[in-house]
């Protein structure tokens, strides 16, 4: 499961970086969104992974990450998702304003080389 998650984060991050470096604003915003998915999954994975288990220390077992999932990164992810969502929405508004003012969706607001 760890390797699956690692590959997913890597693919999302790689695709995100590639899209952010593109010249159209829509591609940039998609890239930022993918990157934030990758980051959120990464934070999530810091607290160790278990299937179908509550994040509670079991009596009799030591409270290390081998025996329970740390709930703290999950709460961090929740906050990060909310904040990322808000700022991405704001970026979308600026993107539309830029499209309206410059008449092009190039990131510099000018028509670049085709």
């Amino acid at each position: 499961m760890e390797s699956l998650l690692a590959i997913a984060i890597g693919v999302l991050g790689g695709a995100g970086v590639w899209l952010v470096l593109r010249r159209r604003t829509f591609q940039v915003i998609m890239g930022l969104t993918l990157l934030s998915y990758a980051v959120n999954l990464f934070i999530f994975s810091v607290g160790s992974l278990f299937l179908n288990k509550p994040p509670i220390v079991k009596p009799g077992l030591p409270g290390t990450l081998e025996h329970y999932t740390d709930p703290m990164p999950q709460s961090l992810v929740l906050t990060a998702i909310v904040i990322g969502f808000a700022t991405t929405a704001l970026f979308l508004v600026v993107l539309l304003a830029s499209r309206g003012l410059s008449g092009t969706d190039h990131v510099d607001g000018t028509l670049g080389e085709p």
Partner: protein
Amino acid sequence: MRHLIVAPIVLPLVTAAALVLVGEKRRRLQSLINIGATLAGLLVAGAILRSINGGGSGSVGVYLAANWEAPFGIVLVADRLSALMLVLVGVVSLSAALYAEAGWARAGVYFHPLFQIQLMGVNGAFLTGDLFNLFVFFEVMLAASYGLQLHGSGRPRVSSGLHYIAVNLLAASLFLIGLAMLYGTTGTLSMADIARKLPLVAAGDRGLLLAGVAILAVTFLVKAAIWPLNGWLVPAYTATSAPVAALFALMTKVGIYVLLRLWTLFFPAGGASAHFGGSVLLYGGLATIVFGTLGLMSTMRVGYIAGFSLVVSSGTLLSATGMGVDSVTSAALYYMLSATVAVSALFLLVEIIDRIGTDGQARRDIDVANGEDTNLDDEELPLVGRAFPGSMAWLGLAFMSCAVVLAGVPPLSGFVAKLSLLKAVVSAGRPGEGSTTAPIAAAWWLLGLLLVAGFVAIVSFARTGIRQFWSSGRRPQHRIKVVEAVSVLTLVLICIGLTVFADAILRYTSATASGLHSPSAYIEAVLSAKPRPGPTRLVVDRDGPR
């Protein structure tokens, strides 16, 4: 007094909410509330500074926001550095708020609430004691700054704002990655607790830890405008409105503050991986000074000069921080006060100068190189002896004061700052003295670059000043409003005050620097703060004997 530490965050938040409720229709009331709250913020910051300074060396104010002990609950920490930054925010934001009343506050909606939210984010970043809250306050500050940067709209603002927001969203992703890696290796987010646990991290995890710290640092280096990562700064800061640009000058200092705070806390001298990444700060700062200096030489527009001066001051602060020596850090803190105030004043002046140069018409997109450059020797003769307009004289003096401070020539605070910085760098660069781990050659590079940067600043300011004030040949049609004059004059007076009280301020910054470089007092104060007994326990105690 105990709750004073949380006031710099609560006050702007409540004010912003009140401003939204008051509504955009009642502008005069909104303006009064905004200025009043900003003034109150300055007074609160002053009170915090007084109480910290009066508490003797190593005095740290700790506020347990939810009454939980430090590694578990949210903690706000006010030490000398935080208090100093809060006062700086208070001063600059007050003059920006005053200036905004001259017209910019009415250029669009929600200027005042965004202004207060921005203050809340900046103050919170200076006060918070744990990394995740730092992230939250960073985002609060940035979200408000996106709105403010676009205030007034227009194509240059939107186009540079697009880059500004994209860069900051990317930086926020890096912040989260670094934060998660630090949490993964140390198991805590409290800065003091991380500092305590860092030496205990196993050697096998140390690489992961250092990588996490480095990723985290990139975020703050972007904010602090280190050289390869600062392409967004000058376009965004020059395109935005004057009071907002003055406020933004503070935001680069948030990056510097966090770097200084975390770096001294995590990697103190003598500890494990001491001064990790110090050379990046040092050489990155040097490269930033070179970049800013080249930029200063390349431009004749006052806005760009202010932007590149900001870059130069950032570079100076970064490389001075990277030296990791008490005396250099102390001088750098004084330099930061003087440079920030002067750059903010310059950002406020930009617009007035542009307006006067064009007989009251806005000139945003026209390059100065296309302006008139006529030789006025013949026509100027009748002008000799005519009374120089008061507003022009005032404006020229204000511009000159900013130039003098930023170039670091006598008699204003810039000279004191640069002199003490040079003196500290020279003594740190002497072999055998100081405790710098930085190579001695780097100290001499810093020395040389500081002198060259000062010289280039003089040339650049003189060139632009001559063009704007002497050879423009246009009569000022536009009077300067009183609030504009007062706001810029306040900042210039602060620079004079910094010069007059330089001794006391340098003593304060030196105490700040020595506190930063021996962080045990900070860690001890944060982790030993005890929650107060809650009301439930009182009830239990009273009922106990029954």
